[in-house]
């Protein structure tokens, strides 16, 4: 009798990329529900558009590259990229924004580098930044949090670009708390005056709930060990500590740490975007530096930059630094005094 031969270990595998991707998508559900509640149907429309075009782009590229299509599509990474991009987009943006963004993310930021596992940059954020620098106007089309337009208005705005007769686009959209904070401070106003209008209990009005939901999903991901604590913890610490430092020095002009933590894409970024393992650092210590860098850069871009939020740029900048950080943060090998050969 001839027995089959395999290489050790022989135990059935414990983890699975597809399951990990699915879990990340599950963990996004509370955030998606909250966003839908705050901003209306545009959220789901964006997710559908971006998700579908990301999958299509992935399938097309795999076909062109002569790779098996079905097993790779089923790993869920393309869908996840589409969904993450959709969650960064304003819900009233025209339909082609989501399509262009996710197609760019998949084609240029992922497949042209060799597909899953080979992309040096976070595809969703690369797609988002391309949209941000190319179509800045369309990326401001956020409805007022908690006062979303109805389905027909949303559909009209997204697919025709015009509001239905009798409504004004300016009556529907509203600057995000992050944006208005910068504008108001730029106009010489002081933070205490803005309390209650721009910021809610913790962060930006409405957005604090959204961030709380992402935090919830993120903590679940930590619990089921899909992500590790280093990057989210370090990123939130970097953001909060920098904010605290400046807030203590000048409370009138620098927002509180809790405002930064619960506004914009802070929690989404910390638990779902910065933790993208492919483009992040891989050494445990390196992940701390990587997260810290994203946190600090996010604060800097939010406070002094010209864009509505800093997470996307901060993540891409730290993606650039990741290989170098990894090189310098190798763990000490058992029985040795350093991480490299003696």
């Amino acid at each position, binding site marked *: *009798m*001839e*027995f*089959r*031969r*395999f*290489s*050790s*270990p*022989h*135990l*059935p*595998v*414990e*983890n*699975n*990329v597809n*399951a*990990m991707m699915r879990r990340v998508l599950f963990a996004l559900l509370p955030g998606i529900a909250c966003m839908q509640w705050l901003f209306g149907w545009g959220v789901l429309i964006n997710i559908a558009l971006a998700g579908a075009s990301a999958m299509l782009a992935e399938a097309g590229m795999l076909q062109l590259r002569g790779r098996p299509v079905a*097993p790779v599509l089923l*790993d869920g*990474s393309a869908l996840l990229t589409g969904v993450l991009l959709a969650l960064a987009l304003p819900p009233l943006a025209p339909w082609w924004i989501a399509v262009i963004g996710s197609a760019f993310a998949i084609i240029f930021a992922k497949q042209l580098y060799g*597909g*899953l*596992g*080979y992309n040096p940059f976070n595809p969703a954020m690369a797609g988002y930044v391309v949209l941000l620098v190319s179509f800045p106007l369309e990326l401001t089309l956020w409805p007022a949090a908690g006062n979303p337009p109805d389905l027909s208005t949303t559909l009209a705005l997204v697919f025709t670009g015009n509001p239905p007769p009798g409504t004004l686009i300016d009556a529907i959209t509203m600057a995000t708390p992050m944006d208005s904070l910068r504008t108001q401070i730029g106009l010489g106003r002081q933070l205490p005056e803005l309390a209650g209008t721009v910021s809610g209990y913790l962060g930006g009005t409405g957005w604090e709930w959204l961030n709380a939901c992402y935090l919830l999903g993120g903590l679940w991901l930590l619990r089921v060990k899909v992500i*590790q604590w280093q990057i989210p913890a370090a990123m939130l610490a970097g953001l909060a500590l920098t904010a605290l430092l400046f807030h203590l020095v000048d409370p009138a002009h620098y927002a509180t740490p809790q405002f930064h933590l619960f506004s914009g894409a802070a929690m989404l970024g910390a638990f779902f975007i910065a933790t993208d*393992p*492919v483009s*992040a650092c*891989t*050494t*445990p210590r390196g*992940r701390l530096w990587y997260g810290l860098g994203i946190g600090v850069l996010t604060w800097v871009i939010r406070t002094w930059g010209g864009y509505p939020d800093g997470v996307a740029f901060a993540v891409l900048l730290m993606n650039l630094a990741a290989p170098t950080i*990894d090189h310098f943060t*190798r*763990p*000490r*090998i*058992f*029985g*040795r*005094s350093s*991480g*490299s*050969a*003696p």
Partner: protein
Amino acid sequence: MAETARTPLDPGFTRRYRFHGGLRLQVCQEAPAAQPIRHAGIPAQLILPLAQHIGDPARCLVRVGEHVLGGQCIAEAVGTVSAPVHAPTSGTVTAIEPRPVPHPSGLPATCLVIEPDGMDQTGVKAAPAGDYLQQEPAALLEQLRAAGIVGLGGAGFPTALKLARKHPIELLLINGAECEPCIACDDGLMRERAREVIEGVRILRHIVQPAACVIAVEDNMKESEQALRTALQELDEQHIRVLTVPAIYPTGGERQLIKVLTNREVPSQGFPADIGIVCQNVGTAAAAYAAIARTEPLRSRIVTMTGDGVRSPCNLEVLIGTPVRHLVEVAGGYTDHIERLLIGGPMMGYTISTDAVPVIKTTNCVLAVTAQSMPAPPPAQPCIRCGKCTEACPADLLPQQLYWHAHAANYDATQDYGLFDCIECGCCAYVCPSHIPLVQYYRHAKTAIWAQEKQQRAADIARERHEARLVRLERIRQERAEQLASKKQALTGKDAGDAARQASIQAALERVRRKKEQADIAPRNTDNLTPQQLRQIEEAEQRRASKTTGRGNPQEPPGQ
């Protein structure tokens, strides 16, 4: 670095330290150790490889057709790192030929095949020494060496060699923690033969003379722990302690166990003795006891025969050389869907393609499994750098970076990332969500590097030889040239003689000529003349002169 690795020993061993990574594996919960050890009996054929240990293969001492007795030395150790092989029972040597052996390569190796006669006759035994604890350690070491005792925990390093270290040893650590889940041979041994283990440890202790001596068992091996404690009490042994360690894979690994108990790290590429520790397996201790107290060479060992591929998993006392097929029969035969046979545990064991492979000194477990309990690995997906492997690695390596470089055949980089610190425990591959056979990549890289080094050595030797050859050729050429020259000289010697003679003739002629010249000048016939003659000459001269002038100037009157 060795200094930083050496933290002072806590005499109470109160703390357990944590090594990085590792796994809590929940497999093989119903271990076969609970049942008594069964004797597998004498099989129809015993296959004894000459290399059952680390080091040089033993040299065969018997011929085909020869009758051997149980315990007879049939192959002797060659060199320092080697171990003899003994006949497990009486019988006839039927073949000395390559047979499939338990080795990951699956390649056959030279084996002695014995057909047992079933009488199990043993040779004349030397009388057991009275109190072995009164003997010289060197004498005991020699007995262990002659008995063919090697590490039974898995590596098979000759025990006598490991014990005979020059360094002073602080701790003798007896490893009772199983290497892997599913393996239960040490557990079974300690439960049933705790006294033999303790007696063996006494012998090892007497040889090594350590400051402290500890037997470590995993915290889920309650029966073993209890049995050892009872035996210690019965033997009134004060110097040996039984300690428990958490059952985290791979605590049974020597380096990890030392870390857990002492917080010391065995230097990379070093040995436990470098940090004052000697580590031995409980099975080795029991075998040492049999060798010293009963003058019994290593003829049998306990093997766990388990997995869902056999009907009644159990611990078996097996003669060395027994084919796996025989173990399976004793364990009730295969179940219907048996697919894989493993030597060793589920994490580090290797598959064998045939059950004709024998049990050797280092075989601790045979796993027969179906595709249900151990399915074929799913296809590998791209590495997403999730870092789960890094979290799990007990050697604190970056497995995914190692994989990256091994995949790219960038072997220098793999060594820079500590490839040779990898113990191939399989934790990284087990947790990998992309199902990449990481350990296979590392093994491949190690083999490739060894092959490269071998090639490099061969190339170095070839270059040296080539250079030596060039030097030799040059020397020969010069010698030839010199020989030629001297021969030529010998040949042309006559001409050279002529030239010399001619030169001497020339010189003689020259002398003559000179003499002549001198003669021309010096002996004039006008010397020593009388004044009259001088006057006559003068007159004659004058005449001549006047004639000449007369011719030259005709106007002058002659004779003025």
